[in-house]
Protein backbone atom coordinates (compact mmCIF):
# COMPACT_ATOMS: atom_id res chain seq x y z
CA UNK A 1 0.00 0.00 0.00
CA UNK A 2 1.24 3.45 -0.88
CA UNK A 3 -0.06 5.15 2.26
CA UNK A 4 1.98 5.26 5.43
CA UNK A 5 0.56 4.25 8.77
CA UNK A 6 1.65 7.04 11.08
CA UNK A 7 2.32 6.64 14.76
CA UNK A 8 -0.80 8.47 16.02
CA UNK A 9 -3.00 6.39 13.75
CA UNK A 10 -1.45 3.12 14.83
CA UNK A 11 -1.80 4.21 18.46
CA UNK A 12 -5.47 4.93 17.87
CA UNK A 13 -6.03 1.60 16.11
CA UNK A 14 -4.47 -0.32 18.99
CA UNK A 15 -6.54 1.60 21.52
CA UNK A 16 -9.65 0.98 19.44
CA UNK A 17 -9.03 -2.76 19.56
CA UNK A 18 -8.50 -2.58 23.33
CA UNK A 19 -11.65 -0.53 23.79
CA UNK A 20 -13.49 -3.68 22.76
CA UNK A 21 -11.87 -5.66 25.55
CA UNK A 22 -8.53 -6.50 27.12
CA UNK A 23 -6.13 -8.48 24.96
CA UNK A 24 -2.78 -10.20 25.17
CA UNK A 25 0.06 -9.52 22.78
CA UNK A 26 -0.53 -12.18 20.17
CA UNK A 27 -4.31 -11.75 20.04
CA UNK A 28 -3.93 -7.99 19.82
CA UNK A 29 -1.44 -8.30 16.97
CA UNK A 30 -3.70 -10.69 15.09
CA UNK A 31 -6.70 -8.43 15.52
CA UNK A 32 -4.82 -5.46 14.10
CA UNK A 33 -3.43 -7.56 11.24
CA UNK A 34 -6.88 -8.87 10.37
CA UNK A 35 -7.78 -5.35 9.32
CA UNK A 36 -4.50 -3.76 8.36
CA UNK A 37 -1.67 -4.95 6.22
CA UNK A 38 1.07 -3.69 8.48
CA UNK A 39 4.49 -4.82 7.47
CA UNK A 40 5.81 -3.90 10.89
CA UNK A 41 5.39 -7.19 12.62
CA UNK A 42 5.80 -5.73 16.06
CA UNK A 43 3.43 -3.76 18.20
CA UNK A 44 5.75 -3.89 21.17
CA UNK A 45 7.04 -0.30 20.92
CA UNK A 46 3.51 0.98 20.36
CA UNK A 47 2.25 -0.75 23.49
CA UNK A 48 5.16 0.44 25.59
CA UNK A 49 4.60 3.99 24.44
CA UNK A 50 0.87 3.85 25.16
CA UNK A 51 1.60 2.35 28.55
CA UNK A 52 4.14 5.05 29.35
CA UNK A 53 1.65 7.75 28.43
CA UNK A 54 -1.01 6.22 30.64
CA UNK A 55 -3.34 5.25 27.79
CA UNK A 56 -3.21 1.59 28.65
CA UNK A 57 -2.22 -0.50 31.58
CA UNK A 58 -0.70 -3.91 31.83
CA UNK A 59 -1.51 -6.83 34.05
CA UNK A 60 -0.56 -10.48 34.17
CA UNK A 61 -2.89 -13.43 34.38
CA UNK A 62 -1.89 -17.07 34.75
CA UNK A 63 -2.46 -19.17 31.67
CA UNK A 64 -1.36 -22.78 31.30
CA UNK A 65 1.32 -22.60 33.92
CA UNK A 66 2.75 -19.24 32.87
CA UNK A 67 1.82 -15.62 33.18
CA UNK A 68 0.27 -14.05 30.16
CA UNK A 69 0.51 -10.29 29.87
CA UNK A 70 -2.72 -8.46 29.13
CA UNK A 71 -3.28 -4.90 27.97
CA UNK A 72 -6.26 -2.79 29.00
CA UNK A 73 -7.28 0.70 27.94
CA UNK A 74 -7.45 3.33 30.71
CA UNK A 75 -10.03 6.11 31.05
CA UNK A 76 -7.57 8.67 29.73
CA UNK A 77 -6.84 6.26 26.89
CA UNK A 78 -10.50 6.32 25.95
CA UNK A 79 -10.48 10.11 25.98
CA UNK A 80 -7.38 10.13 23.81
CA UNK A 81 -8.98 7.63 21.44
CA UNK A 82 -12.09 9.81 21.14
CA UNK A 83 -9.97 12.82 20.29
CA UNK A 84 -7.93 10.92 17.71
CA UNK A 85 -11.05 9.34 16.26
CA UNK A 86 -12.60 12.77 15.79
CA UNK A 87 -9.46 14.07 14.13
CA UNK A 88 -9.30 11.06 11.85
CA UNK A 89 -12.91 11.45 10.73
CA UNK A 90 -12.26 15.08 9.86
CA UNK A 91 -9.09 14.16 7.98
CA UNK A 92 -10.71 11.25 6.19
CA UNK A 93 -13.73 13.33 5.14
CA UNK A 94 -11.42 16.00 3.79
CA UNK A 95 -9.47 13.52 1.71
CA UNK A 96 -12.68 11.84 0.58
CA UNK A 97 -14.11 15.15 -0.54
CA UNK A 98 -10.96 16.10 -2.42
CA UNK A 99 -10.60 12.76 -4.16
CA UNK A 100 -14.25 12.72 -5.08
CA UNK A 101 -14.05 16.27 -6.40
CA UNK A 102 -11.06 15.45 -8.54
CA UNK A 103 -12.68 12.37 -9.98
CA UNK A 104 -15.88 14.30 -10.76
CA UNK A 105 -13.98 17.05 -12.51
CA UNK A 106 -11.58 14.71 -14.12
Amino acid at each position, binding site marked *: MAFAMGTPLLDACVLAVLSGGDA*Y*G*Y*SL*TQRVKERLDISE*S*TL*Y*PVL*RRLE*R*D*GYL*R*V*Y*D*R*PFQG*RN*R*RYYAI*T*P*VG*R*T*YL*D*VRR*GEWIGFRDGVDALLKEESEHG
Partner: protein
Amino acid sequence: MDKRAYLSRLSDNLERYVPDQERWDILRWYEEYFKDAGEGNEQAVIKELGDPATLARRLAEERGYGGTRRGPRMWQILVGVVVVVAIAIPLMAFSPLVQILGFRRVIRDPVELVTTVPVEQAPSEWYEPAPGDGGIEISISADGINVDLHPEDIDSPSVRADVSTDGDNLNWDFDGQYLYVDWYGNGESDWKAAGTLTVAIPASWELNSVGIYMNGAGDVAVSDLQPCNELYVEAQVGNVTAKRIVGVSHYLSIRTGVGDVAFDGLPAAGGSTYLSTETGDISATLYCMDRSVPYDLHTDVGTVTVDGTNCGSSASYSSGGSSYDFNAWASVGNVSLTFGQEFVAGVIQGEDGSGIVVVGPSPVPTGTAWEIN
Protein backbone atom coordinates in the same frame (compact mmCIF):
# COMPACT_ATOMS: atom_id res chain seq x y z
CA MET B 1 16.79 -21.90 13.44
CA ASP B 2 14.24 -22.65 16.13
CA LYS B 3 12.54 -20.39 18.62
CA ARG B 4 15.26 -20.76 21.22
CA ALA B 5 18.00 -19.86 18.76
CA TYR B 6 15.99 -16.94 17.43
CA LEU B 7 15.39 -15.44 20.88
CA SER B 8 19.02 -16.01 21.79
CA ARG B 9 20.20 -14.10 18.72
CA LEU B 10 17.66 -11.38 19.36
CA SER B 11 18.94 -11.09 22.93
CA ASP B 12 22.57 -10.89 21.82
CA ASN B 13 21.76 -8.13 19.37
CA LEU B 14 19.58 -6.21 21.80
CA GLU B 15 22.35 -6.23 24.36
CA ARG B 16 24.33 -3.88 22.14
CA TYR B 17 21.62 -1.24 22.12
CA VAL B 18 19.26 -1.32 25.06
CA PRO B 19 19.48 -1.59 28.86
CA ASP B 20 18.91 -4.96 30.45
CA GLN B 21 15.44 -4.14 31.75
CA GLU B 22 14.27 -3.18 28.29
CA ARG B 23 15.91 -6.27 26.82
CA TRP B 24 14.07 -8.54 29.26
CA ASP B 25 10.80 -6.83 28.51
CA ILE B 26 11.29 -7.29 24.78
CA LEU B 27 12.32 -10.93 25.14
CA ARG B 28 9.34 -11.60 27.31
CA TRP B 29 7.08 -10.10 24.68
CA TYR B 30 8.48 -12.28 21.89
CA GLU B 31 8.64 -15.41 23.98
CA GLU B 32 5.00 -14.96 24.83
CA TYR B 33 4.26 -14.22 21.18
CA PHE B 34 5.85 -17.50 20.15
CA LYS B 35 3.96 -19.42 22.80
CA ASP B 36 0.59 -17.90 21.95
CA ALA B 37 1.16 -18.48 18.25
CA GLY B 38 1.44 -22.21 19.03
CA GLU B 39 4.27 -24.67 18.68
CA GLY B 40 3.31 -25.59 15.15
CA ASN B 41 3.75 -22.00 13.99
CA GLU B 42 7.29 -21.47 15.20
CA GLN B 43 8.82 -21.21 11.74
CA ALA B 44 6.02 -18.99 10.50
CA VAL B 45 6.63 -16.56 13.36
CA ILE B 46 10.37 -16.57 12.70
CA LYS B 47 9.71 -15.74 9.08
CA GLU B 48 7.25 -13.03 10.06
CA LEU B 49 9.67 -11.39 12.48
CA GLY B 50 12.60 -11.54 10.10
CA ASP B 51 16.28 -11.26 10.82
CA PRO B 52 16.83 -10.95 14.60
CA ALA B 53 19.64 -8.41 14.16
CA THR B 54 17.41 -6.17 12.05
CA LEU B 55 14.54 -6.55 14.49
CA ALA B 56 16.81 -5.65 17.41
CA ARG B 57 17.99 -2.49 15.67
CA ARG B 58 14.47 -1.44 14.77
CA LEU B 59 13.20 -2.06 18.29
CA ALA B 60 16.09 -0.10 19.74
CA GLU B 61 15.39 2.81 17.40
CA GLU B 62 11.67 2.83 18.03
CA ARG B 63 12.23 2.65 21.76
CA GLY B 64 14.55 5.62 21.51
CA TYR B 65 17.94 4.01 21.92
CA GLY B 66 20.65 4.97 19.50
CA GLY B 67 23.45 2.97 18.04
CA THR B 68 25.14 2.41 21.35
CA ARG B 69 23.86 1.34 24.68
CA ARG B 70 22.69 4.29 26.70
CA GLY B 71 19.84 5.78 28.67
CA PRO B 72 17.14 8.13 27.43
CA ARG B 73 18.46 11.16 25.62
CA MET B 74 17.54 14.80 25.71
CA TRP B 75 15.33 14.65 22.62
CA GLN B 76 13.27 11.98 24.28
CA ILE B 77 12.66 14.22 27.23
CA LEU B 78 11.63 16.97 24.84
CA VAL B 79 9.30 14.56 23.06
CA GLY B 80 7.88 13.70 26.48
CA VAL B 81 7.12 17.35 27.08
CA VAL B 82 5.35 17.60 23.74
CA VAL B 83 3.39 14.43 24.45
CA VAL B 84 2.20 15.66 27.82
CA VAL B 85 1.24 19.01 26.37
CA ALA B 86 -0.50 17.16 23.56
CA ILE B 87 -2.50 15.27 26.16
CA ALA B 88 -3.25 18.30 28.24
CA ILE B 89 -4.48 20.45 25.37
CA PRO B 90 -7.08 17.98 24.05
CA LEU B 91 -8.25 17.32 27.59
CA MET B 92 -8.85 21.01 28.10
CA ALA B 93 -9.97 21.94 24.61
CA PHE B 94 -12.34 19.03 24.28
CA SER B 95 -14.19 19.57 27.47
CA PRO B 96 -17.36 17.94 26.09
CA LEU B 97 -15.34 14.74 26.00
CA VAL B 98 -14.40 15.26 29.58
CA GLN B 99 -18.00 15.85 30.34
CA ILE B 100 -19.04 12.70 28.55
CA LEU B 101 -16.48 10.78 30.49
CA GLY B 102 -17.90 11.96 33.78
CA PHE B 103 -21.56 12.05 32.85
CA ARG B 104 -23.19 9.69 30.48
CA ARG B 105 -26.67 11.03 31.04
CA VAL B 106 -28.27 14.29 30.11
CA ILE B 107 -27.90 16.77 32.88
CA ARG B 108 -30.79 19.06 33.66
CA ASP B 109 -30.45 22.77 33.05
CA PRO B 110 -27.58 24.13 35.06
CA VAL B 111 -28.14 26.99 37.42
CA GLU B 112 -26.12 30.11 36.89
CA LEU B 113 -24.33 31.58 39.86
CA VAL B 114 -22.34 34.78 40.05
CA THR B 115 -19.20 34.63 37.93
CA THR B 116 -17.51 37.93 38.40
CA VAL B 117 -15.78 38.04 41.74
CA PRO B 118 -12.09 38.58 40.98
CA VAL B 119 -9.42 36.42 42.45
CA GLU B 120 -7.35 38.63 44.66
CA GLN B 121 -4.46 36.34 45.28
CA ALA B 122 -3.40 32.85 44.54
CA PRO B 123 -3.48 30.55 47.52
CA SER B 124 -0.08 29.91 48.93
CA GLU B 125 -0.66 26.17 48.84
CA TRP B 126 -0.88 26.17 45.10
CA TYR B 127 1.79 24.15 43.43
CA GLU B 128 2.21 23.68 39.74
CA PRO B 129 5.15 21.75 38.36
CA ALA B 130 6.05 22.29 34.75
CA PRO B 131 4.20 19.91 32.42
CA GLY B 132 6.07 16.87 31.28
CA ASP B 133 9.17 17.65 33.23
CA GLY B 134 10.33 14.08 33.18
CA GLY B 135 10.35 12.37 36.48
CA ILE B 136 9.58 8.94 37.72
CA GLU B 137 6.61 6.85 36.77
CA ILE B 138 5.06 4.56 39.29
CA SER B 139 2.76 1.73 38.42
CA ILE B 140 1.35 -0.44 41.16
CA SER B 141 -0.84 -3.37 40.35
CA ALA B 142 -2.31 -5.44 43.12
CA ASP B 143 -4.91 -8.09 43.46
CA GLY B 144 -6.98 -8.63 46.52
CA ILE B 145 -4.88 -6.86 49.12
CA ASN B 146 -4.67 -3.37 50.45
CA VAL B 147 -2.25 -0.90 48.98
CA ASP B 148 -0.80 1.96 50.92
CA LEU B 149 1.29 4.51 49.06
CA HIS B 150 3.07 7.28 50.84
CA PRO B 151 6.36 9.09 50.52
CA GLU B 152 9.12 8.81 53.02
CA ASP B 153 12.36 10.62 53.16
CA ILE B 154 14.51 7.66 52.34
CA ASP B 155 17.06 7.12 49.63
CA SER B 156 15.49 4.25 47.75
CA PRO B 157 11.98 2.96 47.25
CA SER B 158 10.78 0.69 49.95
CA VAL B 159 8.31 -2.00 49.12
CA ARG B 160 6.97 -3.98 52.00
CA ALA B 161 4.51 -6.80 51.62
CA ASP B 162 2.71 -8.08 54.62
CA VAL B 163 0.41 -10.62 53.07
CA SER B 164 -0.72 -13.99 54.24
CA THR B 165 -0.09 -15.98 51.07
CA ASP B 166 2.02 -16.02 47.96
CA GLY B 167 4.42 -13.31 48.97
CA ASP B 168 6.68 -14.52 46.20
CA ASN B 169 4.38 -12.99 43.67
CA LEU B 170 5.47 -9.55 44.69
CA ASN B 171 7.82 -8.07 42.14
CA TRP B 172 9.21 -4.64 41.94
CA ASP B 173 11.69 -3.03 39.61
CA PHE B 174 13.16 0.39 39.50
CA ASP B 175 15.39 1.41 36.64
CA GLY B 176 15.80 5.05 37.52
CA GLN B 177 12.71 6.17 35.66
CA TYR B 178 9.99 3.64 36.18
CA LEU B 179 8.98 1.93 39.37
CA TYR B 180 6.76 -1.05 38.76
CA VAL B 181 5.24 -2.97 41.61
CA ASP B 182 3.19 -5.98 40.69
CA TRP B 183 1.37 -8.14 43.13
CA TYR B 184 -1.03 -10.70 41.89
CA GLY B 185 -2.57 -13.95 42.99
CA ASN B 186 -2.21 -17.29 41.31
CA GLY B 187 -5.55 -16.99 39.55
CA GLU B 188 -7.25 -19.96 41.11
CA SER B 189 -10.86 -19.36 41.87
CA ASP B 190 -10.54 -20.21 45.55
CA TRP B 191 -7.56 -17.95 45.92
CA LYS B 192 -7.73 -15.69 48.89
CA ALA B 193 -5.27 -13.27 50.30
CA ALA B 194 -5.28 -10.62 52.91
CA GLY B 195 -2.73 -8.10 53.96
CA THR B 196 -1.20 -4.82 53.07
CA LEU B 197 1.27 -3.79 50.43
CA THR B 198 3.05 -0.64 51.47
CA VAL B 199 5.02 1.35 48.95
CA ALA B 200 7.01 4.22 50.33
CA ILE B 201 8.38 6.70 47.82
CA PRO B 202 11.35 8.86 48.72
CA ALA B 203 10.23 12.44 49.15
CA SER B 204 13.14 13.52 46.99
CA TRP B 205 11.83 11.73 43.93
CA GLU B 206 10.59 13.80 41.08
CA LEU B 207 7.41 12.02 40.05
CA ASN B 208 5.69 12.11 36.71
CA SER B 209 2.80 9.66 36.71
CA VAL B 210 1.46 7.50 39.50
CA GLY B 211 -0.98 4.70 38.82
CA ILE B 212 -2.47 2.29 41.32
CA TYR B 213 -4.65 -0.47 39.94
CA MET B 214 -6.45 -2.73 42.35
CA ASN B 215 -7.64 -5.67 40.33
CA GLY B 216 -9.22 -7.66 43.15
CA ALA B 217 -10.99 -6.62 46.30
CA GLY B 218 -8.97 -4.30 48.47
CA ASP B 219 -8.59 -0.76 49.70
CA VAL B 220 -6.19 1.85 48.42
CA ALA B 221 -4.72 4.62 50.55
CA VAL B 222 -2.57 7.41 49.16
CA SER B 223 -1.26 10.18 51.31
CA ASP B 224 1.07 13.14 51.09
CA LEU B 225 1.97 12.44 47.51
CA GLN B 226 4.69 14.73 46.28
CA PRO B 227 4.07 16.81 43.14
CA CYS B 228 3.42 14.81 39.98
CA ASN B 229 1.66 15.21 36.68
CA GLU B 230 -0.92 12.48 36.95
CA LEU B 231 -2.48 10.31 39.60
CA TYR B 232 -4.72 7.39 38.72
CA VAL B 233 -6.33 5.14 41.25
CA GLU B 234 -8.63 2.40 40.04
CA ALA B 235 -10.18 -0.07 42.44
CA GLN B 236 -12.86 -2.66 41.86
CA VAL B 237 -14.22 -3.47 45.29
CA GLY B 238 -12.75 -1.39 48.06
CA ASN B 239 -12.48 2.06 49.53
CA VAL B 240 -10.08 4.66 48.24
CA THR B 241 -8.67 7.21 50.61
CA ALA B 242 -6.52 10.02 49.27
CA LYS B 243 -5.26 12.42 51.90
CA ARG B 244 -3.41 15.67 51.50
CA ILE B 245 -3.09 15.40 47.74
CA VAL B 246 -1.95 18.87 46.73
CA GLY B 247 0.53 18.61 43.88
CA VAL B 248 -1.11 16.81 40.98
CA SER B 249 -0.76 19.13 38.04
CA HIS B 250 -2.60 17.62 35.10
CA TYR B 251 -4.92 14.72 35.73
CA LEU B 252 -6.37 13.28 38.86
CA SER B 253 -8.67 10.31 38.65
CA ILE B 254 -9.92 8.22 41.56
CA ARG B 255 -12.44 5.54 40.81
CA THR B 256 -13.85 2.52 42.53
CA GLY B 257 -16.66 0.13 41.67
CA VAL B 258 -18.04 -0.70 45.08
CA GLY B 259 -16.68 1.39 47.90
CA ASP B 260 -16.32 4.89 49.23
CA VAL B 261 -14.04 7.61 47.96
CA ALA B 262 -12.60 10.04 50.48
CA PHE B 263 -10.45 12.85 49.14
CA ASP B 264 -8.87 15.92 50.57
CA GLY B 265 -6.58 18.19 48.68
CA LEU B 266 -6.32 20.34 45.60
CA PRO B 267 -7.65 19.47 42.16
CA ALA B 268 -5.38 18.94 39.16
CA ALA B 269 -4.46 22.42 38.02
CA GLY B 270 -4.16 21.99 34.29
CA GLY B 271 -6.65 19.22 33.63
CA SER B 272 -9.51 17.45 35.26
CA THR B 273 -10.31 15.86 38.56
CA TYR B 274 -12.61 12.87 38.72
CA LEU B 275 -13.88 11.18 41.83
CA SER B 276 -16.30 8.40 41.18
CA THR B 277 -17.86 5.27 42.60
CA GLU B 278 -20.67 3.11 41.32
CA THR B 279 -21.92 2.13 44.74
CA GLY B 280 -20.59 4.14 47.65
CA ASP B 281 -20.28 7.61 49.07
CA ILE B 282 -17.96 10.36 47.95
CA SER B 283 -16.68 12.81 50.51
CA ALA B 284 -14.27 15.52 49.53
CA THR B 285 -12.64 18.27 51.51
CA LEU B 286 -11.34 20.80 49.05
CA TYR B 287 -8.73 23.42 49.68
CA CYS B 288 -8.16 26.35 47.42
CA MET B 289 -8.62 26.93 43.75
CA ASP B 290 -7.21 30.02 42.12
CA ARG B 291 -8.60 29.40 38.67
CA SER B 292 -11.13 27.43 36.79
CA VAL B 293 -10.70 23.77 37.47
CA PRO B 294 -13.28 21.28 36.36
CA TYR B 295 -14.38 18.80 38.95
CA ASP B 296 -16.49 15.73 38.40
CA LEU B 297 -17.88 13.78 41.31
CA HIS B 298 -20.16 10.91 40.49
CA THR B 299 -21.90 8.10 42.32
CA ASP B 300 -24.73 5.92 41.11
CA VAL B 301 -25.83 4.67 44.52
CA GLY B 302 -24.56 6.80 47.37
CA THR B 303 -24.11 10.38 48.46
CA VAL B 304 -21.78 13.18 47.47
CA THR B 305 -20.63 15.49 50.23
CA VAL B 306 -18.27 18.34 49.55
CA ASP B 307 -16.77 20.57 52.18
CA GLY B 308 -15.44 23.54 50.29
CA THR B 309 -15.38 26.02 53.15
CA ASN B 310 -11.67 26.50 52.63
CA CYS B 311 -12.00 26.94 48.89
CA GLY B 312 -10.97 30.13 47.26
CA SER B 313 -12.60 31.54 44.18
CA SER B 314 -13.07 29.77 40.94
CA ALA B 315 -13.51 31.60 37.70
CA SER B 316 -15.84 30.44 35.01
CA TYR B 317 -14.74 27.66 32.78
CA SER B 318 -16.25 27.62 29.38
CA SER B 319 -15.93 25.73 26.17
CA GLY B 320 -18.18 25.49 23.17
CA GLY B 321 -20.92 27.60 24.65
CA SER B 322 -21.34 25.55 27.76
CA SER B 323 -19.54 26.25 30.94
CA TYR B 324 -19.14 24.39 34.11
CA ASP B 325 -16.85 24.29 37.03
CA PHE B 326 -18.24 21.66 39.15
CA ASN B 327 -20.27 18.59 38.44
CA ALA B 328 -21.71 16.57 41.26
CA TRP B 329 -23.96 13.66 40.52
CA ALA B 330 -25.67 11.12 42.72
CA SER B 331 -28.30 9.09 40.91
CA VAL B 332 -29.98 7.83 44.06
CA GLY B 333 -28.51 9.58 47.10
CA ASN B 334 -28.14 13.22 48.06
CA VAL B 335 -25.66 15.83 46.96
CA SER B 336 -24.48 18.30 49.55
CA LEU B 337 -22.06 21.07 48.64
CA THR B 338 -20.83 23.59 51.16
CA PHE B 339 -18.61 26.42 50.03
CA GLY B 340 -17.04 29.36 51.77
CA GLN B 341 -18.04 32.91 50.90
CA GLU B 342 -15.25 33.31 48.44
CA PHE B 343 -16.05 30.36 46.29
CA VAL B 344 -17.79 31.52 43.19
CA ALA B 345 -18.36 29.10 40.41
CA GLY B 346 -19.42 29.86 36.89
CA VAL B 347 -21.81 27.00 36.91
CA ILE B 348 -22.39 24.36 39.46
CA GLN B 349 -24.47 21.64 38.05
CA GLY B 350 -25.59 18.37 39.40
CA GLU B 351 -28.50 16.23 40.27
CA ASP B 352 -29.52 13.83 42.93
CA GLY B 353 -32.59 11.94 44.01
CA SER B 354 -34.04 14.90 45.87
CA GLY B 355 -32.39 17.78 44.09
CA ILE B 356 -29.01 19.37 44.52
CA VAL B 357 -28.36 21.33 47.67
CA VAL B 358 -25.86 24.13 47.43
CA VAL B 359 -24.95 25.94 50.60
CA GLY B 360 -22.82 28.99 50.81
CA PRO B 361 -21.51 30.79 47.78
CA SER B 362 -22.56 34.23 46.79
CA PRO B 363 -25.21 35.18 45.95
CA VAL B 364 -26.66 32.62 48.29
CA PRO B 365 -26.31 33.84 51.86
CA THR B 366 -24.35 31.51 54.06
CA GLY B 367 -26.53 28.95 55.65
CA THR B 368 -29.15 29.00 52.93
CA ALA B 369 -30.00 25.76 51.30
CA TRP B 370 -30.62 26.01 47.62
CA GLU B 371 -32.58 23.27 46.07
CA ILE B 372 -32.56 22.72 42.37
CA ASN B 373 -34.85 20.25 40.78
